[in-house]
């Protein structure tokens, strides 16, 4: 019985299987797996391949069952090899990913971090609000003359209102000066306007006053607005300023108007905003009043139209036909309120410790 070829073949197959099972779990890399493949299912010298060749020595009635059994063995070995290979590959990938681990708390490679000046941000916000309301942004010169800066604005020489606007003058003849307010630019626009009397402009820009103390800067920025046309009313002025202040600061703050005085508007009104710092209960910023003085305005004084008409030599802005309103506010003041900046001079000192606080 010992040399029954069928039993012999079964015995050799069992031995091969046992050997393979022991070896496959010991294989730890692709080379070892290839060696196993060669030893057991290799086309030339594989043990299982050899067994299959020996099938022919079996009696015909035993051949079929033995063949099926050997095929199953071959498939099991190949399947186990593939499984093992996949497991090894997964392990290698895992190891590689582990090796590639970074410290996510380390800072990133910086991208350039510059920024616009906070006054630019505020100025552009103001411009955008008014452009959306149909205003043209008009940029006038910073060096002006007496006519545009004072005379046409109903402030003749020796007018007491000039005391408040101590002026820088240029050397040389001509009485040239640095504009003390952007109101000068509304005159320039009216004189140069191609479609009088229709006007709807804002004029942002730098202005200069000969003030030299801790709460003033000799240069600062204002924005001036001017609307002229038929039937423009004080109601229009109120509505426009309310819309503008609510868009700039938010609709939750009340707006208060009170009468005031400017030589170039009549009636004149100042607009106050409910204090954005304390909500109106009173604080240092609003000097305990609950209100922030934010803007001066008024209906264009007919004397201004008349001064422009004289310069033009024609009645382009007939005070009997057209009315208008003008307003002005400090861009610096808005920026200081918005960001809580306590010293105006910081705005003009180019200190990176200051500038870097404002996202662009």
């Amino acid at each position, binding site marked *: 019985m010992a040399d029954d070829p069928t039993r012999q073949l079964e015995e050799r197959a069992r031995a091969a299987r046992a050997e393979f099972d022991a070896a496959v779990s010991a294989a730890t890399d692709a080379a070892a797996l290839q060696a196993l493949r060669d030893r057991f299912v290799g086309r030339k010298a594989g043990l299982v391949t050899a067994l299959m060749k020996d099938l022919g020595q079996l009696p015909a009635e035993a051949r079929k069952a033995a063949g099926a059994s050997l095929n199953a063995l071959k498939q099991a070995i190949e399947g186990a090899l593939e499984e093992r290979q996949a497991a090894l590959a997964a392990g290698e990938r895992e190891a590689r990913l582990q090796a590639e681990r970074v410290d996510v708390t380390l800072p990133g490679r910086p991208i350039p971090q510059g*920024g616009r000046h906070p006054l630019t941000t505020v100025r552009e916000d103001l411009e955008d609000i008014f*452009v959306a309301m149909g205003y043209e942004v008009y940029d006038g*010169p910073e060096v002006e003359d007496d006519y545009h800066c004072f005379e046409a604005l109903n402030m003749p020489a020796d007018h*007491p209102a000039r005391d408040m606007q101590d002026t820088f003058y240029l050397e040389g003849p001509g009485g040239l000066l640095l504009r003390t307010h952007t109101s000068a630019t509304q005159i320039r626009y009216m004189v140069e306007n191609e479609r009088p009397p229709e006007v709807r402009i804002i004029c942002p820009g730098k202005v200069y006053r000969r003030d030299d103390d801790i709460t003033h800067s000799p240069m600062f920025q204002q924005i001036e607005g001017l609307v002229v046309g038929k039937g423009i009313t004080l*109601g229009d002025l109120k509505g426009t300023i309310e819309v503008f202040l609510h868009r700039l600061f938010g609709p939750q703050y009340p707006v208060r108007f009170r009468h005031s005085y400017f030589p170039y508007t009549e009636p004149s009104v100042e607009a106050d905003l409910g204090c954005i710092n304390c909500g109106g209960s009173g604080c240092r910023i609003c000097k305990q009043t609950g209100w922030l003085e934010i803007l001066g305005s008024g209906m264009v004084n007919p*004397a201004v139209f008349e001064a422009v008409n004289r310069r033009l030599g024609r009645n382009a802005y007939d005070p009997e036909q057209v009315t208008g309103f003008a307003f002005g506010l400090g861009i610096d003041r808005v920026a200081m309120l918005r960001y809580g900046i306590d010293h105006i001079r910081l705005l003009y000192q*180019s200190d990176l410790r200051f500038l870097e606080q404002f996202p662009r």
Partner: protein
Amino acid sequence: MKAPISWLREYVDVPVEAEQLGQDLTKVGLELGGLERVGDDVVLDFEVTTNRVDCMNVVGLARETAVRYGKPLRRPAADVAESGAPASEVLSVAIDAPDLCPYFAARVLEVKIGPSPDWLRARLEAVGVRAINNLVDLTNYVMLETGQPSHAFDLERLPAPGLRARWAKPGEKLRTLDGVERELSAKNGLVAASDGTPLALAGVMGGGDSEVHDGTRLIALEAAYWNPLATRRSARSHSLHTEASHRFERGADPAATRFALDRIAHLVVKLGIGSVRPGIVTAGAIPAARHVVYHPQRTNRLLGVRVPEGEHRRVLVGLGFGVEGGGGSWGVSVPTWRGDVGSEIDVVEEVARHFGVDNVPATTPPASRPGRLRDDARFARRVRELLAGAGLHEVISLSMVSDAAQRGVADARVRLANPLSEEGDALRASVAFPGLVQALQLNQRQGRRDVRLFEVGAAFLPAADGGRPREVRRVALLVSGPDPQARWSGRREGADFAELKGLVDGLVESLGAPAPTWEAEGAPGFLHPGQSARLRLGDAAIGWAGALHPDVAAGFDLRDAACLAELDLAPLLAARAAVRFAPLPKFPAVSRDLSVVCPPGLSAAGLESIIRGAAGPTLRHVAFVDRYAGPQVKAGHVSLTLSLRFSDPDRTLVGDEVQRALEAAVQALAAAGAEVRGVA
């Protein structure tokens, strides 16, 4: 203007507490600046605008209060019990200069000088006026009450028994009450004695020699109307600003002269200070009231609301205006204390103030055309965004700079006639220099090394015809110190010309303008002569760029080198070309790298031009990718690596064609003394 509410209540019934009164008067144009409790009184401090000198007194404030609440106004008592010989027997007055003084009035009082009663002292001190003696205190009291300054002369110390108003002669002298001996000019108005001796700076300050003193018995009490402009010029010529000049400069009430004299006389008798000689001696005439034609409809149109006719009338009458006629056109006479009201619009404002801006409904005018940001403003915004995105911080520096510091910038500069200091005695002729360099200096002093700044703003250049200077919009940039991005890339070097040039060219390209030409000559003298360039766009010089000259940098005590540039914005805006789509290449491009050793004197631009000329039109793109100067190349030579890209829009290039083009380039380079080290 400080006013105790107890004083106001003497002339008007105030139906509210002091806080509310302050708020209500604020709305009509008298802004409450402060509120202070003094004993059981409350002192309100109003910020009176320059046009409303009529409210620089208690009666004026009471009048506004009366109109605000619809209450009657009571005038201070001014009936006078006179006694003795007529005033005109001991005092005469005259006006020599009607342009200085239209009306001059005086009374004669017999007094016993002493301290004021306590209530008077307390009231003066509550509003911040120092008590002196009973007579001077009374003049101050009545000035605060009626707005009319008056001046008491010791009649017995006058060199002659008469007062006259006249202009000073240049060189005359007067010792004023503040003890200062002043040399007078023709700008100064005077009260002089009838023999000509100067006694007081008219409308500004009294003189010391005729001052009331403890032994004074006979008083010449003067109250005049001084021309506002004359008073202003006179006070300014001595840098003086007094309670009196403040009021006269802004236009006092000519009719208040007599009233103030009567009121003081009334109080002199009432308080037992002395007696009053009969009569007021006067010269000149009180100017007649102005008349204005007023159309209520004009107010209604301007406000955008129908103000009831009765309201127009109530406000005007309450404020002291005379109103005649009715219907559409009224005749309005202006009270003497309202020198600020001269035209119809001034009357409109009065009605508007007391009708109240709160009663005007808010509307918005419809826009007749779309809003617009002009191209140059939009362009400046883009410049700022690009440079901020490139890591630079925007600064805004003062337009005033030291003229000495910008001497190297321009030959002709715009100087200020009245600078605050030498540090700012001129307008900047450059935005970058010295402005940005000073900003760098400031930041370096705070220990900051990496500094990258830009500014967009005007440089001021004198006009050829002496007219308004040209204001040229420019962008300026400055880079200094280690690149903050170098942290992880191992680059440690500081800012250099290449970084600056990269920024400038990148900016210009992003703005859509053609690349400027960099010329090694013609840059300003404050730049390093070997590391600077003048920038051109076509024929126009549009700016400059370069490293700061080491000597200049040393002058600023700079720790790191700095590179800076400045470009005009207008030519860049004008040079922007419309973007046109180019079809994508259908055929592949061929790339080759070329390493060339450049001899001294051959610039990169020259090298590129040789290569392009020799290689022909299939060479589409040339990029400099590496630069080396060191032991491997001859002194003065530079090894440059260029990346060349060849293509043809109509076909695929064959290897031979590219090879031939390359060989042509190599030969041309050799002819120019440049050796090709390798082609890859």
